[in-house]
């Protein structure tokens, strides 16, 4: 009797601890976020004169109107569309390629397999500052300047997502493969029917990460695009600085920053649902 009581007391205590921790953290995290959102509804006058107030004294929509109206020099809707196009294709390609490649590095045996993988990883850790120029030259040779392909393809070389998926695949027991092999399955079948479903949560994460990664890249698009209308949104937002690189119209910056995260936010909320579903599906498979 005493044992069950202490177990349930234990779990109640831990539940309350968890809740407290989460709530405190989320309050700290949410306050600046809300402040950013409400600032987007403030006029510059209010931003500079009123001390910290969560809610604006005067709610104004002029920041949003100014941002959306500016279709010649700052066409934010066009930028959002470009970003969505680029990021979606990029993320899809990444998921396809990374899952296949990670399978190759974990399930197939060949000489120098791990050495090759970690060498590539090591090379990718080098900060590439002046890589901009040779990268541009390569893009130029391929004829991709000023096209979305310059944004979509180079990122496929990335090692980060590959490393992540590899780490998950390494953790999948080899016995599952053995069972399938005994049934006569070849590598593609094992990959498609066994491994892929098990890494689905991670692949959703990879999609999310590569989508947002592509979305948030700002220096490369500036170099690669010469047409303002073709730029993705994060690079486009740089055009809102004044000529000496400062953001002066604070409310307007906030409104454009918020408009810029709406697609990625929606993707995250959607992915979250799907992601939680997949995790529940996986829960029964081990053992």
């Amino acid at each position: 009797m005493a044992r069950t009581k202490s177990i349930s007391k234990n779990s109640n205590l831990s539940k309350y601890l968890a809740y407290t921790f989460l709530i405190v953290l989320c309050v700290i995290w949410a306050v600046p976020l809300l402040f950013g959102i409400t600032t987007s509804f403030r006029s510059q006058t209010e931003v500079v004169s009123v001390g910290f107030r969560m809610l604006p004294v005067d709610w104004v929509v002029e920041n949003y109107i100014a941002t959306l109206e500016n279709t010649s020099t700052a066409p934010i809707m066009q930028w959002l569309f470009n970003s969505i196009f680029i990021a979606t294709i990029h993320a899809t390609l990444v998921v396809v390629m990374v899952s296949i490649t990670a399978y190759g590095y974990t399930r197939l045996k060949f000489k120098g397999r791990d050495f090759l993988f970690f060498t590539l990883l090591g090379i990718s850790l080098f900060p590439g500052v002046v890589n901009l120029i040779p990268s541009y030259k390569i893009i130029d040779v391929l004829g991709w300047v000023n096209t979305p392909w310059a944004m979509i393809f180079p990122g496929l070389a990335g090692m980060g997502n590959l490393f992540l998926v590899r780490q998950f695949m390494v953790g999948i027991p080899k016995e599952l493969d053995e069972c399938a092999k005994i049934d006569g399955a070849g590598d593609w079948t094992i990959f498609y029917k066994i491994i892929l479903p098990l890494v689905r949560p991670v692949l959703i994460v990879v999609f999310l990460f590569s989508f947002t990664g592509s979305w948030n890249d700002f220096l490369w698009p500036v170099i690669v695009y010469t047409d303002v209308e073709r730029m993705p949104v994060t690079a486009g937002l740089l055009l809102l600085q004044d000529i000496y690189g400062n953001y002066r119209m604070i409310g307007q910056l906030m409104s454009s920053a918020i408009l810029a995260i709406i697609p990625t936010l929606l993707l995250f909320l959607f992915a979250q649902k799907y992601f939680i579903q997949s995790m529940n599906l996986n829960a029964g498979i081990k053992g």
Partner: protein
Amino acid sequence: MREKLISLLVLVFLVSLTLSGCGGSSSNGGSGGKTDEKTITFWTPLTGDDGAYMDEMVKAYNATNPKFKVKHVVTSDMYTKIFTVMNSGKGIPDLAIIHADRVPGFVDKDMLEPLTDIMSAQPSINADNYIPQAWNAGTVNGTQYTVPLDIHSNAMYYNKDLLEQYGVSNFLDDNVITFDEMLSLKGKLKKGDYVVNDALISWVILAQIQNLGGDIKDANENPTVNTPEMKQAIEEIKKISDAGLMTPYGEDGYLMFQSGHVLFSTDGTWTSTAHAQVKGLNFGVTNIYSFDPAVFHNRASSHMFAMLKNDARSDEKEKGIADFLEWVRNNSIKWAEAGQIVASKVVFDSPEYQKYIQSFFTSSEAETNSLYIYTYKYYPEVQEALDTYSADMVHGKLDIDKGLKQAQKFVDDKIKEDTSGKSKK
């Protein structure tokens, strides 16, 4: 068999995807390599609202149905982009706007095309029709490389209401605020109010160098940062900070001016439009503070039209560029809306221009002469050194002698690495 088939399919899929990208002219627009023969590609670093004004001017020009239309591309990080395309040799714009302090460096690296053909095609584009410093900033060894669009200067805004409140509106009588006048307010300000901020402090220092009769180079064209004039300038400004009259280190002085707590803000001519958006801020513009009302300078730079060396640009197109530049000379009143000091004489002499706040800087010969553009080849390095060290020195975080030594070394070391003349492309 099934395995091999799937492998093949995947390979074909990936290869065809890549090839479709290589095709270049995809549904999302053509490749960037081909430039329209009838279009002048025009790159500017005019981000923000300024870009919108330039856009309007370009639109107005294109509406006159010229032989060569202009395509305006605003870009952040324009110089990185320029270096990238100059290095690759392709995709170089036909026309660009660059800053005055880039001119000597670019000429040294053989990046700019002289404008002699443009000037013969349109004879009104000459030294007489522009503010002298702006025109001269584009002259290197007797050859003209640029045509100025504007001068954008360090400018000091003042808060009319605060000046009245503290009874010092008379400071503006001679249009020059002096160090002594500012120091006289020591101990007289309410808590939270300040006399001046430290916006663009390096530009302010550079103006003081001129006020003190110094320079940033010696007779042999070597950069001189660690000079008595530099030391004096920084010490004097530090006095203002020590007296508690300057906005504190790390605070955004620009925002504090907008919030009505600072009497003077030393920012730039281009920010007048932003200040105007703050309701309740009654402001005016005057010169940067100085030691003596008779000797004052405002450190300025200039947006200049320049042609990067580009083999793909035809002579015909260059004539089209000349036409555009001449049009701008006559019609750049639009640019005044951005708060900039328009360089074209016919514009800044016009009565319409006088209603803009920055016309202050062309309101008299003394004013026009106060606009000082540094044309020294290593100016960018000197300014970078000041940007790195001066704030710390002014606010007492770094000993001035030590700081100036480091700043001098900073510039000297950078110049040693300059490869101009060592290798030609």
